[in-house]
């Protein structure tokens, strides 16, 4: 059935003898590595044992001797194929060795007596589905509550352990129970969580819960009863967390949303709360429930998600000490001592709690006095702290100065030597270096920002943890890292910068995340010039490896710039040698031809100020003659240096320091070019400044085209000249197609239907070229109409009537908006060129110029007919059915299935030209209206409206609209009328 196996699954890398434990573990912060899969932990009533329940069974660890292997109970995998999901000690002292555990549907009660697990009873098939939680009654030592996903909560009487009896059974009916907890004050009250609801039962009333609290929208993960208040409980869930008093079901407080909390437990002291996040968080947080804005303490140290925690409390030295026992997926059991200070913070009732800063990790590893260590052998020959401290005197990392060390008090104070003073105190817990990391704290004067401090402490703790997990001392490594980090911070912030002067920018940027800045680039100007710069010249070495491919981040660049480059990385080919020499010797009288083949081991350069010596110690560099002396170029933009860093250490990282030095000579190992070059690429641009100045856009179209063609010719733009000539011919009234004369008569090309298509094609072409200038100028020029030579109406087969008399241009009227956009954008280019007159000329052609700049409603009136029967607006929207074209014109009412607009005179549908009165809305066929109003002044319906005076007076606007029954848009620049004008016909 089940067998007891000692030491199975519980492994410790080192087992120190327990004689060093002069102090009980209750006041320490410890970590124990247990190589087991554990789902649940529980601390017994005496605070001596912790039980770990998991896949393989149960194991018990004596917390007073945490490094001793505990007792394990491996469950027989055949009979117990389920993992233990919940364990709970009996909270009553006399039944303390009783453990209840649940695995799937079974509950088992064990007696841990005589160092053995003894199965008391199995509550087989106690539930139909997996048991989610169980709880011992705090008042009746024989009472155990279990709850399950089958919605039931069962109460068991295990007075006679051999025969457990199901005492009561409550049913939640609707949802499975996830948690069950006994009230800490009322022996009859039991709370259970079902989805987002909490139900509070009186165990004497089985039928229905006493109270329902719909606490959350999401599933409740955990509940806990308060230690102080009978009616208070905490619930935690995906969405938020809050308390309820079950008396009146009022939510007393809610934690900030955003974090989903898996478990929350009240602190047994004070008014605190400890929460465990559900995922992605390796930290436990302690809160004061009176101030939920920020936690008062983070318990950081686990390297994976924390899955379970429990309280341990014991009497020690006459006071009650508390410890938090946590288990994480990183397979560490950690004990966190809750010192009096922290207890005080939780107990305190003032709002000043919020002011207490986030505690740093070092508080978690309090200094504990301990006599001489009795460590056994450890790696690196360092056996104990004493040896390590002795070692430190001999071997100290650079920039680190040991100020004070005390073996008796187990601490070391160090100072980082540098431009700023940084003092750090390192304290060693008694167990160090066995899974107990040292604590780090800054001592005054503190010159670092809090951000930097916490960053450093975090990094050091990580390093320390890494070593002590393997029971290795870590002092030297930590100091080394401390030194490095301070150096790094100084590099970035500058040596003298005070934290207060630049409050936010003081912490260091992570250069690994910052992309390598652009060190070359090209930008176009509005005039078609291309400006380029390139600070560093890269080359490909022979293998085709591109050395700049490494320059992904800013750090890469800094490394690249600070390290003297070998010829392999910077130079390497003949081309780059030429480049190199160019930079080094430009402007000098060095005219020697460079040969690729002559190998040069050494070049000497003598600078004008300092004697510089550049030594390229590879033989690949190929500059001849072998050795020569040159004077350094004084050209200010050629900033060249070789391994100057070797001679002047201070300047080495100069470019990395943010300081305020007014004059800084950049000293880098790579030649740098800070020139900017400009090229005239306007010949590649479709737009041309000279053309813009000379183009004509209004006037006689034929003459205009001739002029523009000449302009293009002068600018050597034959392509544009041709198009202007072609347009000119199209627009010339005297040019026509002789082939078609017989059939159609003398149709000028401007009136020929093919012309429109041609022009559309031309526009399409220039759109593809993105030649905004031609598009805009052409569109403007074509607004100029050719002189009318004839008023004849031509009928070309059965196509539409071409009416030369109308002032319609050859442009595609459906693309007016596009033309306006071209003009607007071209106008902007002209503005950039400061050809303001030309710009104004172009803008005159934009129809919507006023509309784009002003509110659209201020300059346009729209009319829409309203059906006289159903009063619906007959616009295209909302008017479905019927012939499409009629629908869009608003002539046809689909609701009434009839014409919406009928002439007031003849009572027939109006489809063509219509007129109506703006005042009374009556109207009809233009012809009828004109006839009527030629003699009359009032409305033909007899409505009494004096239509003539109402509409045709004043500005003399003609309200005669073509196309359809009345939908017409008309711009009246001098009006400010907007909205819909509706009409009604009687």
């Amino acid at each position, binding site marked *: 059935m089940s067998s007891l196996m000692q030491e199975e699954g519980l492994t410790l890398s080192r087992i120190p003898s327990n004689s060093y434990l002069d102090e009980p573990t209750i006041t320490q912060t410890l970590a124990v590595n247990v190589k087991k899969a554990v789902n649940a932990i529980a601390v017994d009533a005496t605070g001596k044992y912790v039980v770990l329940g998991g896949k393989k069974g149960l194991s018990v660890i004596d917390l007073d001797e945490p490094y001793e292997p505990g007792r394990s109970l491996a469950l027989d995998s055949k009979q117990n194929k389920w993992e233990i999901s919940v364990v709970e000690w009996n909270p009553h002292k006399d039944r303390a060795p009783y453990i209840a555990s649940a695995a799937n549907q079974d509950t088992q009660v064990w007696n841990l007596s005589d160092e053995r697990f003894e199965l008391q009873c199995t509550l087989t098939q106690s539930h139909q589905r997996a048991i989610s939680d169980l709880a011992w009654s705090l008042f009746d030592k024989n009472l155990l509550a279990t709850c399950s996903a089958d919605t039931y909560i069962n109460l068991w009487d295990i007075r006679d352990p051999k025969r457990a009896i199901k005492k009561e059974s409550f049913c939640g009916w609707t949802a499975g129970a996830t948690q069950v907890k006994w009230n800490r004050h009322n022996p009859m009250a039991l709370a259970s969580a079902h989805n987002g609801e909490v139900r509070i039962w009186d165990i004497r009333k089985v039928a229905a819960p006493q109270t329902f609290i719909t606490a959350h929208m999401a599933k409740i993960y955990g509940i806990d009863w308060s230690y102080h208040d009978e009616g208070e409980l905490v619930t935690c869930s995906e969405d938020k967390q809050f308390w309820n008093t079950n008396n009146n079901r009022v939510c007393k407080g809610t934690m900030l949303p955003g974090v989903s909390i898996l478990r929350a437990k009240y602190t047994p002291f004070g008014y605190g709360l400890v929460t465990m996040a559900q995922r992605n968080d390796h930290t436990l947080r302690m809160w004061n429930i009176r101030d939920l804005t920020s936690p008062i303490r983070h318990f950081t140290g686990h390297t994976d998600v924390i899955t379970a925690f429990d309280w341990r409390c014991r009497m020690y030295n006459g006071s009650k000490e508390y410890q938090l026992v946590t288990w994480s997926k990183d397979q560490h059991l950690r004990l966190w001592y809750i010192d009096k200070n922290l207890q005080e913070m939780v107990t305190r009732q003032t709002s000043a709690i919020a002011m207490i800063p986030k505690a740093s990790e070092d508080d978690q590893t309090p200094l504990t006095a301990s006599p001489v260590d009795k460590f056994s052998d450890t790696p690196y020959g360092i056996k104990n702290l004493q040896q390590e401290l002795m070692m430190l005197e001999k071997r100290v990392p650079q920039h680190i100065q040991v100020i004070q060390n005390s073996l008796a008090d187990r601490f070391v104070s160090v100072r980082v030597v540098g431009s700023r003073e940084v003092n750090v105190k390192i304290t060693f817990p008694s167990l160090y270096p066995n899974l107990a990391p040292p604590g780090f704290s800054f001592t005054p004067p503190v010159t670092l920002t809090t951000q930097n401090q916490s960053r450093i402490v975090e990094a050091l703790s990580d390093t320390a943890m890494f070593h002590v997990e393997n029971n290795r001392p870590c002092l030297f490594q930590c100091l080394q890292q401390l030194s490095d980090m301070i150096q790094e911070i100084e590099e970035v912030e500058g040596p003298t910068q005070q934290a207060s002067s630049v409050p936010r*920018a003081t912490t260091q940027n992570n250069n690994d995340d*910052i992309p390598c800045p652009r060190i070359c680039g090209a930008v176009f100007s509005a005039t078609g010039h291309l400006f380029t710069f390139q600070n560093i010249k890269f080359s490909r070495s022979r293998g*085709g490896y591109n050395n*700049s491919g490494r320059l992904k981040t800013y750090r890469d660049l800094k490394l690249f710039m600070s390290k003297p480059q070998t010829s392999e990385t910077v130079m390497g080919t003949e081309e780059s040698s030429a480049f190199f020499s160019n930079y080094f010797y430009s402007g000098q009288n060095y005219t020697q031809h460079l040969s690729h083949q002559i190998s040069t081991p050494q070049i000497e350069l003598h600078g004008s100020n300092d004697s510089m010596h550049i030594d390229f110690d590879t033989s690949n560099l190929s500059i001849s003659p072998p050795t020569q002396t040159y004077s350094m170029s004084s050209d200010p933009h050629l900033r060249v240096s070789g391994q100057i860093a070797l001679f002047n250490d201070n300047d080495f990282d100069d470019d990395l320091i*943010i300081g305020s030095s007014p004059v800084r000579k950049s000293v880098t190992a790579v030649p740098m070019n800070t020139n900017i070059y400009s090229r005239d690429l306007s010949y590649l641009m479709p737009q041309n400044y000279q053309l813009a100045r000379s183009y004509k856009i209004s006037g006689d179209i034929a003459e205009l085209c001739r002029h523009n063609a000449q302009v293009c010719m002068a600018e050597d733009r034959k392509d544009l000249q041709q198009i202007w000539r072609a347009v000119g011919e199209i627009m010339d009234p005297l040019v026509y197609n002789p082939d*078609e004369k017989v059939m159609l008569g003398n149709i000028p090309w401007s009136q020929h239907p093919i012309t429109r298509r041609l022009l559309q094609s*031309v526009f399409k072409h220039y759109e593809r070229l993105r030649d905004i200038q031609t598009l805009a100028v052409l569109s403007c020029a074509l607004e100029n109409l050719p002189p009318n030579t004839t008023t004849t109406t031509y009928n070309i087969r059965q196509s539409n009537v071409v009416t030369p008399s109308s002032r319609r241009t050859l442009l595609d009227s459906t693309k007016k908006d596009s033309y*306006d956009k071209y003009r607007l*954008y071209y106008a902007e*280019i002209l503005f950039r060129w400061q050809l303001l007159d030309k710009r104004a000329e172009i803008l005159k052609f934009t129809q919507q110029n006023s509309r784009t700049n002003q509110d659209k409603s201020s300059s346009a009136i729209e009319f829409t007919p309203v059906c006289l029967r159903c009063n619906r607006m007959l616009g295209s929207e909302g008017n479905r059915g019927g012939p499409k074209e009629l629908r869009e014109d608003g002539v046809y009412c689909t609701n009434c299935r009839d014409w919406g607009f009928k002439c007031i005179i003849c009572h027939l549908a109006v489809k063509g030209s219509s007129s109506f009165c703006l005042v009374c809305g009556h109207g009809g066929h233009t012809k009828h209206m004109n006839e009527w109003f030629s003699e009359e002044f009032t409305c033909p319906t007899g409505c009494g409206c004096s239509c003539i005076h109402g509409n045709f007076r004043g500005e003399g606007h003609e309200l005669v609209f073509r196309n359809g029954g009345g939908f017409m848009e008309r711009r009246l620049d001098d009006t400010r009328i907007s909205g819909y004008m509706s009409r009604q016909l009687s």
Partner: protein
Amino acid sequence: MSLLSSPSLDFVISPKHQPFSTLDIVWPPKKLKNGNNVASTNQQIVRTSSIISTIDSQHEDMIHDVQLDYYSKRLATCSSDRTIKIFEVSDGGANVPLSEIKGHEGPVWQVSWAHPKFGSIIASCSYDRKVIVWKENQPNQWAKFYEYDRHESSVNSISWAPHEFGLILAAGSSDGKISVHTWKPEEQTWDVAVQNAHTIGVNAVSWAPAVPAGALVGSSPALAPKRFVSGGCDNLVKIWKLESDNTWRTEEKLEHHTAWVRDVAWAPSIGLPSSNIASCSQDGTVVIWSQSNTNAQWTKKVLPGASNVVSWRVSWSVTGNILAISGDDNKVTLWKEGLDADNDWKCIEGLDAADAAN
């Protein structure tokens, strides 16, 4: 009769004159011969692209950005020496240094000129985590107009919104966030909206033009929605849109690059319905993303033959017809969309970034 039965009207573009194909109008229209490849690129460049002037920036450290003002009269440069310098540039080659702006406490990565209707304004971003807007109050006297220091890491890129929207600045930082700063002229304050954009960091931002691309014919001339594109260390190019509830949302995630996106640039619109975005990445690819109208799908075209070169920067010409790509092979390549059926982008020029070859 014959005229109307003619299936289509065409004109021939013959590659006589580069860069612009000549337009030979066949008139009256004749049937074109097959195989007349009208847009074969012909590299017969008459004019040269040699350097016409050199500006000695006098910077003491690497230059990271140069930008011209609206009129192309003044050039702003920024450098690792923490300064911004302004030069007057002219075609004649007389390049006069005008002023030097100090105030950043780290290398300055980018500068950007605002539209002149707001005054003479420059924005800059730096390694020191700040975005600073400078205003020229007196000629050549630049003063801090606005400073934003809430980014938690280096600010890598800034971009002014099209002036039609007002004075709006977007900044992308290595803390993964993009902040959008809007000047409220009535209250004389800046409104800041910050959103997470790219994990690890944002490397580039670029605004969409304000002219509605592909607005429907006859529709109201309202401005296009505010949009910008960003590229970051999550290898993505993201398009952001200001939604009606005044929050920025990702409209599109464009996936192609396999390494950090180094630069993105939204091409200027000249009123054409299509939008183009160029993006370049640490993986050596340069992609042109295009959208035929505002609601269409984005399609990508990978520029060929640039795979060995890591491109640092992409820059569009004023009308968006030419894309300049500067890479680490010391060359600036100019690319143009071809006129043949598949509209492939072709490299038309390769220039040296510096004059070292001379």
